[in-house]
């Protein structure tokens, strides 16, 4: 008995009546195990840490990270200082990737459904048995000639994992490989393709721009590549090499984290961002700030977006539009970007086109500080198949054209509105296989679960999109030996191919995905002289690449592009985005935005993310309805009161948060909470606002519109306290965050360094 426990027993605890209580409670902690290494593996020195480079797959940005390994356990993830996308920085979701690796709710091994579908009642099976079942099912499909009835739904993949998957699907002669994600930036890709004829998403050079118009782009939070853009934002403000400080104007109905840092906030009416952008463009042409040859053609094209009319639609005064366009044209290089906030309306893609037009008129396409055009990755261009969205899968399932569905890294039941009744469509599919590591809403419907490795345990590579002006490839290597009985994503298909034999087997001959990857890279190494420069053969190149975390070569982006009048013409919107539900019965717009810590809900099972206070509301472990204080007082709502938010398609009930940075005629809810499965940290916590949305898929891009309905608020009464970490957010004149005006800053002259 340790001395401290002894002291607890003998007296401090109080009279004998308490002693019984004490004896019952004090057990000793279980003995920790020592490291029984007779011959320690070569790089395990107890107490010493080593760092390995890999790819962060928590969001689409593809930053390079270093993982600190001590005694074969991953301890900390840090940004890879050499990697051009994040240069050493890392966002909070990247830091929390370890919690997904060591999550207690991870699936331990392959599972087979036992109970009814959707009951998540599985039984453990061995890998061979599971692969036999799948192999036999796929073989049967191929024999009966219905090979195309095999569908594969995955989050966007890149690099050799995508190559393996496409070869597997084509070997199985099924064209139905659907890459779909909630925030997949399909509108950007589509607009770039139609207006400028380029597929890749360009690199927005925020670091060198002087004036930025950001239409609903929360780029320091969750949009596209937050770490790269935050680094750019930092340079734009206080870059050492810059002459003057860049200005940021945020144009969005709800003040996002980026809006909070902006110099100006323009609270435009939801859905009318495109109209505002085009009226700014029109004023630029009208006032002669744009002296291009085809100015008259642009004027006639944009004639219906005069500031006077646009002011009514966008709720922004005409003088304001004049001032914005004057500044945007006046301070070269200027940059306009359109983020998820402005694009996820029913006709959201028009705002992306409008922003391209603005950049074109300001002459900032392909210019330093503007929009730099990316060239394709080493493995050629990745084309987004706009026809293949979630809608195509659901329609095929409804018309029973799907016999087998394989899911990887995607949760459609959570991310699609209830109005799409995706659950019924999936029910029509006889055989569903999920490769997910967690039992989330969709995996609960699966008949067979083949848990793939967590990316930190697996091989692979990724081509950053958007890249930084030149192609960047990052290699993913296993950091730790697998925590559970899971297999690599590639290894599953290679094993399946060898089991099914026939055509599939020749196409995928290598016995493990590592060899497949290495041989793939060997080909690239032999094909491109750029790779082989300065290396002594492939092995040396491979070692160097694993050490650096990937391969990239600095190059001045020289590709040019321009917005064609014809392309722009197709994309012009006639009126602001349409919202379901009539104005009188449903008075408020409902705007959804990705939660800072959960993205589209995939990180809700990480305790650090649940506990991270939301940057704008500091709410943790739950959801909150952001409502303007005046609207709230009008309805008698105080903070923490339960409010029922009802749309024509459903209703959710959550606590209210009085948020001054939101328009009075709208309310906002973060996407990410409200899971019904997905582990102990995410289950039955908060609400999922996507449930009450209409199912509005944009036929052109195949993405589901998130801001597409009006709602009404019903005050349900006072609930318990809102779990938030803030006290009073007024500064009360205490000069805690001291500020100086830009004139004072200019007068300060060059700072010391």
């Amino acid at each position, binding site marked *: 008995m340790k001395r401290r426990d002894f002291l607890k027993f003998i007296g401090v605890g109080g009279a004998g009546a308490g002693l019984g209580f004490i004896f019952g409670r004090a057990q000793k902690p279980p003995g920790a195990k020592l490291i029984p290494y007779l011959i320690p593996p070569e790089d395990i020195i107890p107490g010493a840490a080593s760092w390995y480079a890999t790819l962060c797959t928590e969001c689409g940005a593809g930053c390079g990270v270093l993982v600190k390994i001590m005694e074969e356990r*991953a301890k*900390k993830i*840090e940004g890879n200082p050499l990697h051009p996308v994040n240069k050493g920085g*890392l966002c909070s979701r990247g830091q929390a990737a370890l919690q997904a690796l060591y999550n207690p709710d991870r699936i331990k091994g392959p599972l087979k459904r036992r109970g009814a579908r959707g009951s998540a009642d599985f039984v453990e099976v061995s890998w061979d048995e599971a692969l036999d079942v799948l192999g036999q099912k796929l073989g049967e499909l191929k024999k009966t000639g219905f090979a195309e009835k095999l569908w594969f739904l995955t989050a966007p993949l890149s690099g050799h994992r995508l190559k393996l998957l496409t070869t597997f699907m084509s070997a199985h002669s099924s064209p139905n490989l659907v890459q779909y994600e909630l925030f997949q930036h399909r509108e950007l890709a589509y607009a770039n393709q139609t207006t400028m004829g380029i597929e890749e998403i360009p690199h927005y050079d925020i670091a060198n721009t002087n004036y930025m118009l950001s239409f609903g782009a929360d780029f320091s939070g969750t949009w596209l590549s937050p770490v790269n853009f935050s*680094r750019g934002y930092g340079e734009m403000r206080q870059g050492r090499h810059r002459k003057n400080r860049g200005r940021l104007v945020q144009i969005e109905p709800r003040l996002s984290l980026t809006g*909070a840092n902006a110099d100006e906030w323009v609270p435009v009416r939801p859905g009318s961002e495109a109209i505002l952008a085009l009226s700014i463009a029109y004023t630029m042409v009208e006032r002669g700030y744009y002296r291009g040859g085809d100015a008259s053609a642009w004027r006639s094209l944009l004639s219906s977006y005069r500031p006077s009319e646009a002011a009514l639609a966008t709720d922004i005064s005409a003088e304001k539009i004049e001032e914005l366009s004057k500044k945007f044209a006046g301070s070269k290089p200027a940059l306009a970007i359109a983020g998820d906030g402005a694009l996820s309306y029913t006709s959201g893609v028009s705002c992306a086109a409008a922003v391209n037009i603005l950049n074109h008129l300001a002459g900032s396409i392909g210019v330093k500080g503007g929009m730099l055009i990316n060239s394709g990755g080493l493995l050629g261009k990745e084309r987004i198949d706009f026809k293949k969205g979630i809608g195509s899968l659901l329609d095929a399932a409804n018309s029973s054209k799907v016999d087998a569905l394989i899911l990887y890294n995607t949760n459609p039941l959570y991310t699609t509105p209830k109005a799409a009744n995706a659950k019924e469509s999936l029910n029509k599919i006889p055989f569903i296989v999920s490769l997910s590591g967690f039992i989330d809403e969709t995996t609960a419907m699966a008949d067979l679960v083949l848990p793939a490795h967590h990316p930190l345990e697996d091989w692979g590579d990724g081509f950053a999109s958007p890249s930084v002006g030149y192609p960047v490839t990052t290699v993913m290597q296993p950091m730790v030996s697998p925590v559970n009985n899971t297999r690599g994503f590639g290894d599953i298909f290679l094993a399946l191919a060898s089991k099914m034999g026939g055509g599939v087997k020749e196409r995928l001959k290598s016995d493990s995905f590592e060899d497949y990857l290495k041989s793939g890279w060997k080909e690239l190494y032999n094909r491109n002289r750029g790779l082989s420069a300065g290396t002594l053969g492939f092995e040396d190149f491979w070692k160097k690449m694993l050490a650096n975390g990937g391969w990239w070569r600095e190059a001045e982006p020289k590709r040019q592009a321009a917005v064609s009048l014809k392309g722009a013409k197709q994309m012009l919107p006639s009126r602001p985005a349409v919202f379901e539900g009539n104005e009188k019965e449903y008075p408020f717009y409902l705007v959804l935005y990705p939660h800072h810590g959960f993205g589209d809900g995939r990180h809700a099972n990480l305790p650090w993310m649940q506990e991270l206070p939301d940057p704008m509301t500091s709410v943790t472990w739950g959801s909150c309805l952001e409502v303007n204080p005046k609207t709230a007082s009008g309805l008698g709502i105080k903070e923490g009161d339960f409010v029922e938010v009802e749309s024509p398609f459903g209703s959710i009930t959550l606590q209210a948060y009085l948020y001054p940075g939101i328009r009075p005629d709208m309310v906002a809810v973060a996407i990410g909470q409200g899971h019904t499965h997905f582990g102990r940290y995410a289950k039955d916590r908060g609400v999922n606002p996507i449930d009450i949305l209409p199912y509005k898929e944009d036929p052109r891009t195949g993405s589901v519109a998130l801001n597409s309905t009006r709602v009404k608020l019903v005050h349900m009464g006072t609930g318990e306290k809102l779990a938030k970490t803030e006290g009073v957010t007024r500064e009360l004149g205490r000069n805690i965050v001291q*500020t*100086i005006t830009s004139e004072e800053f200019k007068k300060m002259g060059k700072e010391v360094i």
Partner: protein
Amino acid sequence: MDGIFKRILERLRAYRVPGYYEKFDHKWTMVVDLDRCNGCEACVTACYAENNIPVVGKEQINNSRQMSWIRIERYVDGEYPNVKVKFIPIMCQHCSKAPCETACPVYATYHNQDGLNVQVYNRCVGTFTCATYCPYDVRRFNWFTYKWDKPLDEQLTPDVTVREMGVMEKCTFCIQRIRAAKDRAKDEERTLKDGDVIPACAQSCPTGALSFGDLQDPNSMVSKLAKSPRRYRLLEELNTEPSVIYLKRIMDNGDESH
């Protein structure tokens, strides 16, 4: 016997001067550029990962017992639509005249040779005086012995002790990284140069708002930044002499924004 008296007398003369202890080895300083900080809280999660900070759950957050050593404070002034939001990351300021150091009866917190305000976990008896005296409210207390569900505890790093209940804790400027950098410098027989030590928050900050270094080394980044005309220190009027220097944010007071 006279040996002891001679030692005490000699120390008596030396210790009478209040500034006796200016001769610290380093003056570790953190410079926070508020114009770069965009409130994205990457530093908060990095600190959780680096220093084995426990997750306390919704009910404890309701009782305002979050354990984060660095927090981003958000001050929102003005009504819609002229809303002005300001972020400021606040961590332990490692004051050189720290009100918490004089208050602790058992020396659980004192100013060590590194010039850091050190929190010694195993000496802490839990009288809460240091947390009450701290004007920045940056001290956190282990209200319970927090548990990590089974495989999550694999992530705990052995460099930082996991604290039991009844112990006060705060930002230590990643003292384990300072120690490791000093060991590396000693092995390579050189003195610490600027950039050897970078805490987890400064390393992970995407906008580069946090920079860390030794103020006593004139050509370090922090001493250059500390000469910037935008510098100010939090609650300077309390003369705790904090060693975190903030650089003012540039914000036009919104009169011409609409």
